[in-house]
């Protein structure tokens, strides 16, 4: 029996790690930036209530001589895949039919799913740079792992129920796309008066597995006599011989930065615009790329001698020849899954009260993501928040979180962008965000 049949697309998208998930869209947060000399500008009553200690707190902290920031952000989300299915995939469980059918019932025609992990450590310091007061040198290192997919209902059906139900029918497996990528960055830049920063990153490409399917109509002949695939798509893959955390299969560069603007007035308003990893990786010559726009008929692995079928069945080249897929080893350049973000906040005293945010990541399955937040100030040390959002990899989401001030120098953030998904087994999407910031 051939071992060649294997559902690929959703597995690639879904079996990525999802454990340490958190919310990436907050990776450029107002408080992740030195956003200026923000004075507590609330009313006199507010100042009386919260006291002068809040003025010094860093809910809206100004510039500091040293600023060390760690952000571990991540997210798994999907607009149709149920968590019990995804967790079953990740944990290596038996996926019974009921679990698979529950997700099947939730399919939406165009389905999206993805997982993001991003860890950044940055440090800026000093009083001036190049003779400019308020400028600080900035260094940063980062690790990214992204998985994203956009797929049709038929892809799910074939992957989790097989193609027998599609005998003598066409399964529309496209349009769709998927991308799994990980890379590391080392960045050097400048922070400007705690209001903006710009950073140039050197990027080391780890692994890449990506495809873009414009059309893929699969016809299964009765009894599986043959498969007809009308395929129009592209596929890229990094060298699989070099793997692991320290793998280097490509090199590139990217730009990250942010800019914050405070609008004058009694009720302070701030606008933060940021970009992360706007750049590229040039994958090396060990990589593979294939582009096809043609019908493919697969009648089984072509064997010369019917009486010697056990030998060549599992040979990759034989299978590729039978499928008409001749991968070509070549180098190529692909843009990074960059993130663009804009955030608008209304402040009361030294802490934000409302926030509206829009972001977009250049990754398969990711839609423009809009989010609105309301902050509740419980004390000088705890700032809870409630968020509602739509887009990204998922649909409508409600999230909660809180920021904690630990002493005079440290702030921590812990939140989930998806309360229902995180707590409910049959929900969709899960996430936890962790941020840690120190200023002194």
């Amino acid at each position, binding site marked *: 029996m051939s071992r060649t049949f294997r559902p690929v697309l959703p597995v690639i998208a879904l079996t990525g790690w999802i454990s340490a998930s958190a919310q990436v869209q907050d990776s450029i947060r107002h408080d992740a930036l030195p956003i200026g000399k923000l004075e507590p500008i609330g009313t006199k009553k507010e100042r009386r209530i919260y006291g002068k200690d809040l003025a010094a707190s860093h809910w809206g902290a100004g510039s500091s001589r040293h600023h060390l920031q760690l952000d571990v952000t991540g997210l798994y989300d999907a607009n149709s895949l149920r968590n019990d299915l995804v967790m079953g995939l990740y*944990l290596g469980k*038996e*996926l019974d039919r009921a679990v*698979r059918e529950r997700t099947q019932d939730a399919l939406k025609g165009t389905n999206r799913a993805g997982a993001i992990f991003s860890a950044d450590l940055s440090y800026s310091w000093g009083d001036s740079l190049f003779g400019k007061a308020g400028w600080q040198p900035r260094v940063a290192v980062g690790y990214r792992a992204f998985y994203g997919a956009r797929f049709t209902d038929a892809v799910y059906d074939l992957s*989790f129920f097989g193609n027998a139900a599609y005998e003598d029918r066409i399964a529309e497996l496209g349009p769709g796309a998927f991308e799994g990528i990980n890379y590391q960055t080392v960045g050097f830049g400048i922070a400007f008066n705690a209001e903006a920063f710009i950073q140039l990153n050197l990027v080391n490409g780890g692994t890449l597995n990506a495809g873009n399917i414009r059309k893929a109509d699969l016809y299964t002949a009765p009894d599986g006599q043959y498969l007809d695939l009308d395929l129009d798509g592209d596929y890229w893959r990094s060298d699989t011989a070099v793997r692991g955390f320290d793998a280097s299969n490509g090199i590139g560069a990217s730009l990250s930065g942010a800019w914050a603007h405070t609008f004058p007035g009694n009720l302070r308003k701030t606008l933060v615009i940021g970009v992360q990893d706007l750049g590229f990786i040039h994958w090396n010559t060990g990589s593979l790329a294939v582009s096809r726009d043609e019908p493919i008929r697969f*009648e*089984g692995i072509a064997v010369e*001698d019917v009486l010697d079928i*056990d030998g060549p069945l599992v040979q990759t080249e034989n299978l590729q020849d039978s499928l008409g897929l001749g991968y070509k080893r070549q180098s190529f350049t692909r843009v990074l899954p960059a993130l663009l973000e804009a955030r608008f906040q209304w402040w009361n005293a030294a802490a934000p009260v409302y926030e509206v945010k829009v972001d977009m990541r250049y990754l398969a399955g990711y839609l423009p993501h809009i989010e609105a937040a309301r902050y509740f100030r419980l004390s000088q040390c705890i700032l809870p928040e409630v968020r509602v959002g739509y887009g990204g990899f998922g649909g409508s989401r409600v999230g909660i979180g809180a920021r904690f001030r*630990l002493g005079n120098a440290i702030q921590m953030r812990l939140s989930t962008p998806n309360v229902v998904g995180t707590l409910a087994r049959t929900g969709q999407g899960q996430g936890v965000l962790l941020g840690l910031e120190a200023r002194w």
Partner: protein
Amino acid sequence: MALRTSTLVILSGLLITLVACRKESDEARWDLEVAVPLVSTALTLGDIIPDSLIMEDGEGNLSLLYQDRLFSLRLDTVLTAPDTSLRYSYVLPIPGPLQFPAGTAFNSSENITRFDLEELEMSVLRVRSGMLQVEITNMINGTILGNFSLPGATLDGAPLAVQQTVPPGTPAMPSTVSTGRALDGYRFDLRGPEGDDVNTLAMALSYLTDPAGGTVSISSTDSLIAHVSYLDIIPEYAKGFFGTRDITIEPSSTSLDLFEGISGVLDLESVSARLRITNGIGIDARATIGHLRSVNTATGSSVEMNAPITNGPINLDRAIDLGSGFQEAVNTWTLNSGNSNVEAFVENLPDRIEYALDLRIAPLGNVSNGNDFLYYESRINADLELEIPLRLSATDLTLARTLTVDLPGTLQGHAVRSGTLHVFATNGLPFSAGLGLAIVDEGDQVLLPLQAGGTVAAASVDGSGTVSSSSESHLRFLLDEAAMDLLHTTGRVRVTAVFNTPNGNEHVQLRSDYRMDLRLSFEGNYLVNGDE
């Protein structure tokens, strides 16, 4: 910066929580109902019969040409050179003693050596390998120089000579010196000093008192004894007359893999066979074939060849001596339906050919006047060639092969759980093929035949027996869970194809462009990540 203990505790707790969410096993599992093509292939005659055995004429008609060696006879028993040892003694013919000054030569003698080679009368012998051993025993009280030479034994034109210095000895305590010399490549002229003899080699032996020594006193009690031995002689070439000899080739057999795994009734329109005996020795020979028999060990049937070559002796011409080698004499006898029962011989589908024969060399004596020859490489080879035009009729002609299938997974865990194996055939061969699959054990005993199987219909043939159009057939083989488990246990499948030509005994011509296209697909239950 002052990190508080509480901060570290919170961070540690979060990390532990994240890391604790680990996989229980490697990969999730779920089952699929799949319908997938497995293999596409074409069955041609080349898959059944090796391409090297198939011949095609200008019109695409196929014939089968098969050659098998019955025997290869090396006549090393005809030409053997036994180890030979000769003794040459010198004693002073008078009581003496006599004084021999330094450097005095004595007993210079020329002699001949005659080898006892029984019936062989050799005039020339070229040695492939062998050894000459010369041993001289000295009982004289003075150093003696011994010179031994064979003028008739040359290597690149130089005669063979051995010199030895033998220390003084006494009758009570003789001294002995022995010298060996490889004879590889030496040519021995065995015609003797006069050039008109056989098995005779000229020899010279002389002694000399040591020119650097003093006067030597020799009496009649002193002696010199030389032993000359010819050991382990293997001839490279020999010429002469080797006698009339009878060689019996005991009943023997050779395997024939042409029809391996095939049974049933095969009716051939015509067959021709050639018995080719090549004679690499320079001697006439005569062979008498005791029997030449086609044996089918599976059915137990045998067919005796009945042809002129089996009814009386056949003469084998001699090879030609080219000086540095030889040219074989090829003796060929053709057997066909007109002069033999070769059709029945082949249609028996033999897996063994049994034979026995007697061989007489030089049956007419020394007719070459001593110019028979043998090379070390000389052989008498017998080959049987079968030429079978593939115009035939088949009745339940059965081809069976056992395939070892290396399935992924184990008995305990395999992805393919159960289903149906579909076989789609487009048959362009002029015979039907009943296909059967069975799981067999190591001894090829059927453990489970796979149902339902069926027959691939024959292609349509016209009045001349040529295929006019292909046929389409669809066969199914059920693979339930028990069958899959059994298949993983043995890993062996026996494929049986029973061929029948469409119109009984009417012969059909097989052509090079005939083929049966086969596509195999699987429809059934597949467990993702189920292979362990």
